[in-house]
Each structure stands twice: as structure tokens, then as C-alpha cells.
């Protein structure tokens, strides 16, 4: 294992060096009728990832892509191998959601060395080694810090009580969405004296764990009246925990969340959840647009930000049919 790590690191370093010598520009993309496009998904174990993959498949038709899509089933090593095989199949362009920041560096470097422009989707790679406009064209994704901040702002505006006692359900420990959504929310909420975060524990982005953690924290802090969950699945779990304990989510406890899944929109319509800040998985159309611009020789910013909407009682019913 250790030896493999050293070899991988050395390889990444060598490739980075090689790429550096080869040129600081990303490979150009010729304008043509049809493109052979690679999309290397990291895993398909949650509704969000499934919706993302589907979005690419749906876009393939309208954007004239011959799409090669793979699923690495949660393994960074397999994702690197998937990219290798796509390079061998002669793709014109690669869309890659890198599962982890460092292990996927070789995939980015190899694609560049093979003259294939790379677009990172929804997660990025180690910014100290790989740079936008040099090793990959751009990163397409949401601003997770901003998502947390917007959730906090909605809460500050819409909370009528004198004192907000907040329980925070965090995502997978150490993952970038969990870190950033926490930072964005905590920093903004600290500016308002009415609020206090009494407990912040991980629910691993999962409904079952979110429910169990909420049940426990509710016992330890019965005065809680706000729950902030880093994703909708945990928020739904928290709603179940509150209902089992005889509380009324939406009335005596305000639920604030991020993602915009179908269940969450339904909970908002039912009056149980206050707000969910969208974190859109529908990257296909944006990918098509950015790729065509790049082929036309336009300047692409290093970070193409996704416009995330915000769903509340006012608009949830209008969007539930398109939710995943």
C-alpha cells in the first residue's frame, strides 16, 4: 500500500513536471459536429449522483455527444483506471467529478498529456498541484460555503423567536461539502446574537444516522428550536426524530437544509421544513454550454459557478415535478 502511494505520488509529480514542460496551456478542442465525450462518475449510491449521471445522459442527445459514462463505485483507483480506458478509446473531452482531491491527479495529468481537455465537475482536485487553465480547463460546481451562508441568511430573516437554539447535522467528516457548508453557516450565524449552536455532530449525509443523532441530541438539548442539516436526507431523518418525540417540525422547530430533493420539497409543501438551498446535480446542460464555448475559443473562467436556487414555501410546489 505504502509503496503504491509513493509510486503514485512520484508518478503524479513526474506527470505534473512533464505537463509543465509540455506547455502551460490546456489542449485545444476542435469544433466539430459530434464529440466523443467521457464522463467518469465516482459512485451511484445516492439520489444526487444518480440525478447527475442521468443529466449527462439526457444532454448527450441534445448536445450531439457520443457519451462514454463509467461508474467507479466509490473507488478512486477504479476511477483513475476508468479515465485511462476512456483515453484509450479516444475521447475528445473529459468531464470528471474527482472522488478525492489527490488520488485523481494522475487522471487529470494523463488526460492533458493525451491532448484531451478536462473539465472537473462538482468536486475539485488538489489546487496546489493542478490549476485551472493549466492542467484542466475549469471547475464546474457550486459554492458550498455560499450555500451554508444562504441557509443562515434565510434563518436570520425568517426566525421570529427571541432565542434560536440550533442543532447542526454535519455531512461526512472531512468531505469538502461538509466542511464548507459548516463554515458558511457558522460564520454567518455567529454575527447574530439571537442564535447559539448547542450541538454539531455528523450524520454522514444519511437519513438513518441523521435520525438517530437527532433523537439523541434532542434528548440532551430539549430546548432546540432550529435544526440545520448539511443535506436533505439528514433533514428528513431529523423531521422523523422530532415527530417521534412528539415535536412539531415546522411549528416549534425550524428546519433548514441544503440540496433540493423531492422529499425535501414535499416536506416544505407540508409545512415541516422551512428552506432548502439548492445544490443542483443537473450539470449536463452547463457542461454542454461550457464545452461549446471552449471549442469556439472563448475564455473560460477557472471556476464556472452553478447558480443555486433557494426553495421555500413560496416556490416549492412549482419545482417539485422537476426534483429528483
Amino acid at each position, binding site marked *: 500500500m505504502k509503496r503504491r502511494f509513493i509510486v503514485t505520488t512520484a508518478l503524479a509529480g513526474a506527470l505534473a513536471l512533464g505537463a509543465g514542460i509540455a506547455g502551460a496551456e490546456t489542449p485545444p478542442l476542435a469544433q466539430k459536429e459530434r464529440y466523443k465525450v467521457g464522463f467518469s462518475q465516482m459512485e*451511484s*449510491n*445516492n*439520489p444526487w449522483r*444518480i440525478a447527475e449521471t442521468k443529466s449527462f445522459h439526457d444532454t448527450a442527445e441534445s448536445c450531439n455527444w457520443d457519451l462514454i459514462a463509467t461508474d467507479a463505485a466509490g473507488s478512486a483507483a477504479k476511477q483513475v483506471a476508468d479515465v485511462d480506458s476512456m483515453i484509450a478509446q479516444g475521447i475528445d473531452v473529459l468531464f470528471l467529478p474527482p472522488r478525492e482531491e489527490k488520488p485523481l491527479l494522475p487522471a487529470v495529468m494523463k488526460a492533458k498529456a493525451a491532448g484531451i481537455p478536462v473539465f472537473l465537475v462538482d468536486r475539485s482536485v488538489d489546487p496546489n498541484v493542478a490549476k485551472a487553465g493549466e492542467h484542466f480547463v475549469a471547475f464546474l460546481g457550486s459554492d458550498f460555503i455560499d450555500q451554508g451562508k444562504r441557509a443562515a441568511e434565510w434563518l436570520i430573516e425568517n426566525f421570529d423567536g427571541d432565542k434560536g437554539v440550533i442543532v447542526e447535522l454535519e455531512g461526512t*467528516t472531512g468531505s469538502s461539502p461538509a466542511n464548507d457548508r459548516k463554515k458558511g453557516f457558522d460564520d454567518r450565524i455567529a454575527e447574530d446574537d439571537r442564535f447559539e449552536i448547542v*450541538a454539531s*455532530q*455528523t450524520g*454522514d449525509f*444519511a*437519513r*438513518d*444516522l441523521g*435520525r*438517530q*443523532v437527532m*433523537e*439523541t*441530541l434532542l*434528548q*440532551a*438539548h*430539549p430546548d432546540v428550536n432550529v435544526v440545520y442539516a448539511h443535506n436533505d*436526507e439528514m433533514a*428528513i*431523518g431529523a423531521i*422523523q426524530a422530532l415527530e*417521534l*418525540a*412528539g415535536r412539531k417540525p415546522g411549528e416549534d422547530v425550524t428546519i433548514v437544509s441544503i440540496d433540493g430533493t*423531492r*422529499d425535501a420539497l414535499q416536506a416544505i409543501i407540508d409545512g415541516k421544513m422551512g428552506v432548502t438551498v439548492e445544490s443542483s446535480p443537473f450539470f449536463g446542460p452547463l457542461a454542454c454550454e461550457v464545452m461549446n464555448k471552449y471549442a469556439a475559443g472563448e475564455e473560460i473562467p477557472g471556476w464556472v459557478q452553478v447558480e443555486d436556487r433557494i426553495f421555500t414555501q413560496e416556490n416549492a410546489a412549482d419545482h417539485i415535478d422537476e426534483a429528483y
Partner: protein
Amino acid sequence: MSMASTVCSQFRFDPARHGALAALVVILCFNLIVTPNFLHTQTLFVNISQVATIAIVAMGMTIVIATGGIDLSVGAIMALSGALAPLIFLSPFGLANPGLGLAAAIIIPILAALCCGIFNGVMVSYFNVQPIVATLIFFISGRGLAQVLTNGNLQTISNPSFSYLGTGKILGLPFQGWLVLAIALVLWWLVTRSMFGRQLLAVGGNERAARLSGIPVERVKIGAYVICAGLSGLAGLIVVAINSASDAARIGSLMELDAIAAAVVGGTLLQGGRAPIFGAILGAVIIQLVKYTLLANGVADEVALIAKAAIIIGAVYLQQGRRD
């Protein structure tokens, strides 16, 4: 005075039996002093509903370990039965006949689990495969199968009758708590009073001697794995019922470790020959309370894993002392 000293000498004499009870008392006292709002009926409900699935699987595990075996496939079987249930009552048949669909959604997944148990048992008894290897087959493939069945999609359901399995109450206590009690009484009778129980302990105590004395060793072993798998299937249904959602990737994940830990803490010897059913429940309760205590006092979930390991080491140490 003499009574007190007898009690004391008993404690020193049989640490394996009283160690777990003493640990429970210590944890309870600690919680009463430190954890806010611990002495509250809602705390009891929360802990009963959270411990039920571990206790149910741990009892099955105890039966398997009593034969000198081990079952690593319990978590995967939970995932399989948990994935099957929503598929059945969301199918056209289930929607057309709600009553029949509900019955099928409970019976068919448990039947599927029992089949997995037969497979495990046959592999272990007739093909002489090591139990760890034999059950590793479903440990790997069971969850895969569940994910293939559901395309890895999270299935959300809303069926109040099915949810009763996870959220119903009888005499104010959670339904699954009563279920644990009923299963425990049946298994306790089976182990201590029935022919099967005697044969089970004989096979675990000395398989050669049991075979020579005419006990149908193969059938007894298959019976043990079938019971364990059936209980795992039931636990999978409970998890789905509590959450109103089935996530094949997460149901029962790491359950095999929790169940083995609970059985060991409850006084089951890994080399077989003992099946303390109520001990398994005690072990499950201790593990649950430790998790609850750490969480309610703001200690991160990851630390709970370390604490769990410490408890297992303690339990094994006490068992070693007992054998000397």
C-alpha cells in the same frame, strides 16, 4: 455481612457474567449525573428504538456463535430484505392489493433472508467451508444484489401500516422493543428447553463428540444460520420502516461488527458452546448506551467507535479471566 461478602466473592468468582451488568450500572450512574435530561421516559423510548435492531441481530449472532461459527453476512442480508420490501409494495401488484402487498412485503423479504441462511448453513456444514469465508460470500454479494435490485436508488415510501413496524407503540413502549422481548423469550426457550437447543450447545461444545453421539450436526448448523439470517431480515425491515426509506448502500452497514461485539460483551464465547440470549441483549444495550452517552455529551461519533473497541477488549479480558 456474610451476605454482602458472598455477593462480593461471587463478583470476583464470575466476572464474565457480572462484568457486563456492572458496566451497565456504571454507565447508567454516569449518565444520571452527567447527561442532561437522562431520567426521562423519552430517553428510554429513543434507546429502545435504536437498540432493537442491534439486539435482534445480536441474538441471531449468538446462536451462530454458539455452534462455533460466525456470520459476517447479517448486514448485507438486512440490506437485501430492506431493499426488497419497498420493491414489493411499490410494484403494480402491491399498489393494487394493499393488504396482500403489505403481507408479501414482510413475508417475501424474510423468506429471501432465510434462503441466504440456508445457503450459509449448507456451505458451512456440508461443504466444510470456514464460516468466515462462507458468510463472506453474502457479505460481499448481498449488498451488491440489493443495489442491483434498486439500481442503487434510494427508495422512499409512505405506508403507515408498514411503518408501524418501526414507529408503532404498544402500552406506550416502541413496538420493536416488544418484538425484541418476544424473540428473546422464544430463543431462550429454544436454547434452554428444546432438543434443538441442547444439540446446538453440544455441537458448539465439541462437534466430534456430538457427531459420534448421533446428533445431526449439519441440520443443527443450518438451523442456526437460518435463524440468524431470518432475524437479520426482520431487522432490515425495521430499519426501512423507521426511516420510511430504503437505502441499499447503508442499511445494516457495520451491523456484523455491532452484533458480534454485543454477543461477546454479553458473555458468548467465540469458540462456541454457550448461547446467553439475554446476555446478547445486555451487550447490545451497553453498546447503545455508550454511543448515546458520547453523542449526548457532544463527543464526536468517531470516538464512539474507539469506545466500542475498548468495551470489546474489556469483555474479552473478562472472558480470559473466567477460563483460568
